[in-house]
């Protein structure tokens, strides 16, 4: 064996090897050169399609962006007011459910979870309210899922396609190529992921299914993907069920559950996941999906149990670790949470959020020295998009150590990073109220409410101020709103009772 013999690949083999090594842009360049020589080379053509679609590939399973249009103009949900606990719109509100004081909620009205996920958004109030809710560059919800993707992928295709579009879909003989099993998969993925023309993709999948004699589970799944994107959830479900009858795949189960989630039938989703688990025991995708559904239904204990099962199967699953840690933290066990966060750190993740979480855990566990160093590190590594949250938490830490002046400064800095950070607004309001600046506090609370109408704290605090000022009517309205967010809050109920007496005495 001599070292100086080097084999130089060329032509299609070279492109293919580059593709296998995931050097997509180089592979694509080679393909382009080959195609220039011989434009009718189908293998190269297919490879180039594959290169292009792989460069913009999104995991369709995790892609759960639900835009405003889908949320408010939904037509597929059968029961808009299902029994609590059987619908995402109405999680359980009993003692074991959501408690906004012990576990704060996000801007969209969901209890905070370990990781940020797009779908966890409530359909709260009317469409108008949702439109009015402040949407900045960071908190914006897409108007509709298709438009959100279109925008993003539009830029992607512009960046890579130098000399115009690679395939002219309008002039392509779809029926011919879609029926050809050699190239149809590549063509489909190119149209679906890269061009993002779902209608053509659907047409390709339809023709391909037919030419495969309606017996190819792959094409049924692709059809279902198209239907999911188009919002035709029933057709998607139908395709997936028929695909499962042919071959049971993890992906199919997961997509089916996703379709059920979209029509707000968590019970059906859970059933699908358990069916999947029977075929694929301890599968991480199934378990994670189940845990997410349980979490969204407010069944935290079940959810954490499932996440623990995920960790048994795959001990480096960051989502599971983070969710377990969050639950421990809000469950009053910061030391245990700390151990989980350190585990994430060990796995090589080092983000500002993680250090902040560690810092907060240390603070709650009375390890002030560690807390301080972690928070400082978080501050040093933070990026613009999390700055407001970091400064807000620093403010919290300051309140905990009793330095109220620094705390209010921290909140102000948080607000300078993100003027819509409602938690900071509320806390700053509380500090202002302590100093006797009632009117300032009022305006801070009301701006917090206008940013996030479902927020419990904003409504409750403003209600308290109103009660002190004798504005009982306003107070009652606010308390009622606060009770929607947190139905079992004792203080609110007491206030409501005192006001009731006053009303009756008139």
């Amino acid at each position, binding site marked *: 064996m001599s070292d100086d013999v080097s084999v130089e690949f060329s032509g299609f083999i070279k492109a293919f090897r580059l593709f296998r090594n995931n050097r997509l842009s180089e592979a694509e360049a080679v393909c382009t050169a080959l195609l220039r020589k011989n434009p009718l080379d189908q293998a190269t053509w297919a490879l180039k399609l594959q290169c292009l679609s792989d460069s913009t590939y999104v995991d369709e399973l995790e892609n759960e962006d639900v835009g405003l249009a889908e949320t408010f*103009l939904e037509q597929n949900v059968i029961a808009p007011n299902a029994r609590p606990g059987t619908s995402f719109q109405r999680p359980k509100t009993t003692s074991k459910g959501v408690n906004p004081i012990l576990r704060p909620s996000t801007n969209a009205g969901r209890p905070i979870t370990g990781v940020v996920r797009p779908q966890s958004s409530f359909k709260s109030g009317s469409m108008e309210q949702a439109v009015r809710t402040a949407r900045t560059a960071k908190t914006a919800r897409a108007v509709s899922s298709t*438009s959100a993707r279109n925008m993003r992928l539009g830029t992607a295709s512009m960046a890579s396609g130098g000399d115009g579009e690679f395939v002219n879909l309008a002039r392509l003989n779809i029926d011919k190529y879609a029926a050809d099993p050699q190239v149809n998969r590549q063509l489909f993925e190119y149209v679906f992921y890269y061009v993002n023309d*779902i209608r053509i993709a659907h047409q390709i999948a*339809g023709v391909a299914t037919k030419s495969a004699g309606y017996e190819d589970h792959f094409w049924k799944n692709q059809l279902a993907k198209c239907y999911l994107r188009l919002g035709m959830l029933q057709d998607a479900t139908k395709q997936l069920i028929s695909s499962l009858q042919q071959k049971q795949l993890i992906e199919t189960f997961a997509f089916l559950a996703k379709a059920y989630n979209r*029509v707000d*039938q968590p*019970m059906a989703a859970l059933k699908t996941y358990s069916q999947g688990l029977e075929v694929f025991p301890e599968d991480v995708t199934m378990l994670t999906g189940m845990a997410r559904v349980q979490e969204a239904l407010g069944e935290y204990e079940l959810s954490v149990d499932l996440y623990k099962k995920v960790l048994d199967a795959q001990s480096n699953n960051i989502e599971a670790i983070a969710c377990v840690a969050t639950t421990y933290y809000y469950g009053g066990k910061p030391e245990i949470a700390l151990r989980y966060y350190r585990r994430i750190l060990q796995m090589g993740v080092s983000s500002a959020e993680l250090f902040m979480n560690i810092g907060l855990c240390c603070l709650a566990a009375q390890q002030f020295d560690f807390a301080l160093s972690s928070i400082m590190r978080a501050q040093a590594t933070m990026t613009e998009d999390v700055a407001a949250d970091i400064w807000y938490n620093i403010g919290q830490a300051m309140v905990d150590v009793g330095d109220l002046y620094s705390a209010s400064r921290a909140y102000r800095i948080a607000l300078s990073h993100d003027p819509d950070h409602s938690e900071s607004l509320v806390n700053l309001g509380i500090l202002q109220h302590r100093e006797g600046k009632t009117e300032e506090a009022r305006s801070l609370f009301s701006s917090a409410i206008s940013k996030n109408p479902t927020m419990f704290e904003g409504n409750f605090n403003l209600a308290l101020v109103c009660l002190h000022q004798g504005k009982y009517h306003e107070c009652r309205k606010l308390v009622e709103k606060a009770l929607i967010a947190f139905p079992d809050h004792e203080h609110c109920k007491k206030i409501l009772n005192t006001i009731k007496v006053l009303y009756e005495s008139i």
Partner: protein
Amino acid sequence: MDGDQTPEEQIEISENDPMENLEANVELVSAFAYSLDQRVMEGCVITAILEPKGHETLVAVSVTNKIIIKDTETSLHITETIRCIAAAPFGEGYDCIVIGTDASVICYDVHNNLTVFRNDVPDGVNCFTYGKLGELDEAMYCGGNCSIWGFDKSGANTYWTVTGDQVTTMCLSDYDGDGETELIIGSPDFEIRVFKNDLMRTELMETDEITSLAHVSPGCFAYSLNNGTIGTYVLKERQWRIKSKSNVAKIFNFEEQGLLVVVWKQGKIDIRFAHNGEVLSRDSVSSTVASATVSKKGDDQVITVVCADGKVRGFTVQKAQSGAIDKTQQLIREFGQKKHNLMMELSNYEQEEQLTELEKDRDFRIPADTEVSILFAVNGESQLLSLRVEASNNIPIRGVLIFAEGLFEGESYIWIPPNEHQSRSTIDIPLVIDKDASNDLHTKVFLGHVDSNKLIVMENTRILPRFCRFTLIKPEYEKYFYMPTSFVQLPINNKVVKISEWVKESFTIDSQLADTFDEEDGEFRFMGLQPKQEKSLMFQFNHSEKFFKIYHDSIETMGAMIQSYASFFQIQNMDCVAHFPDVFKEADAILEEIDPMTEVRDRLTAELQERQGAVKEIIIRAEDAIAIDNIPEARKFYIRLKANDAAARQAAQLRWVLREFSANFTLAAHRISCPE
């Protein structure tokens, strides 16, 4: 109580009436009343236990296509148009709601908010029935357009069969008393069909569209027709029927056995004996009834009647307190009426005796031996069958009244001469018959001289043969014979002794001519009569090779003919060869076109959905613009919305047109694929 207590009911009870003397004096008692505050769709009301250990709850469909559940704020949204609804015990100790729409069957578990299954049914579902059919396991049976589907708990298709027409109502009942349930279906083509497992066992011809069917007891089921007839069949025979002017909304069995509850659309509710239809008690609600159901509340059974305007009334049945007295009163009244009639008759005779000969002459008496003959006559030139009424002694006919169910519009036909002096002693009444069904013609002929003020009424009954639209062709009308291309070949077996008997019974034919059918081989040509002018019929006998060929082009008539032939000679099994080239060609053409049609429809649906997505997005954007007071921008969005909306509408319309088109196609395909 309403004014018309007895709307001209005609009761017809067969002779073998068991006349058990049930001492059950019961009456309806109002139990509760409330309102759903929504208009309710006709026929779409059920009661179901929706949660474990729950009570039966009323579930109805509103005219706005929403499912209303009593005592809950929720209403269920179904995107497709709902046609019918039912409950099936598919949950663990509770019921799931099964919804039939114009495209699918959806089984929905309210308790867990999950869709148990959703199956596509082309052309939609019209009715449901749940239970055990024959040897099959319990399943939900769905009656659609010419087909019946059965789905089990998991949504698996356990049963499928085709039938000749739409299925409007179904019930599971033991039709022949053999201990196994049969599926009984009712169709708008006036037929009740009985399926044993997936084979058709019997067809029962009724006189109007079947509107509802209900199981009563083993071997007995009840039916109702669009023309207001209700009745029961016991062990294959009709036991009784009652005709009224009202329409039935729902009939069902009540209190184990023996009682039948009939709820009429006009708001009346009757309790009747199931064995003779006699009314025991009645009550009424003030407005039009949408539907009714019976449910258990504790030990009592409650009849819940839901009106179209959403008002709900509940009734229970209890022992009557005043029933006995009512009965004697009624008897006395009946006897009084009888006495009055007899007295009238007697006074007529007395008057007769007092008349002088002269006076009798002035009365224009008709001779005592006058007879009226009623015959079927065929006009060969116009290919028309008519009923010839002929009075002897040249007595003019002043009027003819024919009563035949389902033959004429409004069931009876009245012939009166245009003016008195045109009365003749022979008249022809044209009969244009749409169906192959034998029918009883009850004729009343009014005879009398033009100046006479008394008329004689002659009654007569004639049976219209089943295939009276065909008659043996006469040589002079040979030009009206069109050679059919399709035929069925039947074997002539030993049981078939005299074909002439069958021909005599089923066709309009002179009895002398009929005998020729028993002779040796030959061809017999029949002429089609209106409305079948161009559909001729031909029999071809070949005794040496023992076969008999029927040539005819209409597949439906052919099916009926073979059934009639088989039942006349009591043949259980018969090997036939059928040849319908035109029909098959048509079916092939349809099948060929259906495939690309579904493909195009799929594509159009995707396009429509994409456009709808765009519309939704623009609505939100416009709202957004208004929220930030950017009115010019909002205006732009609304203009764009208008254009997109128009495009979406167009796509929807296109899809709809295509769907109609393919629905007609599949219907035609069904019709072709299910000859008996």
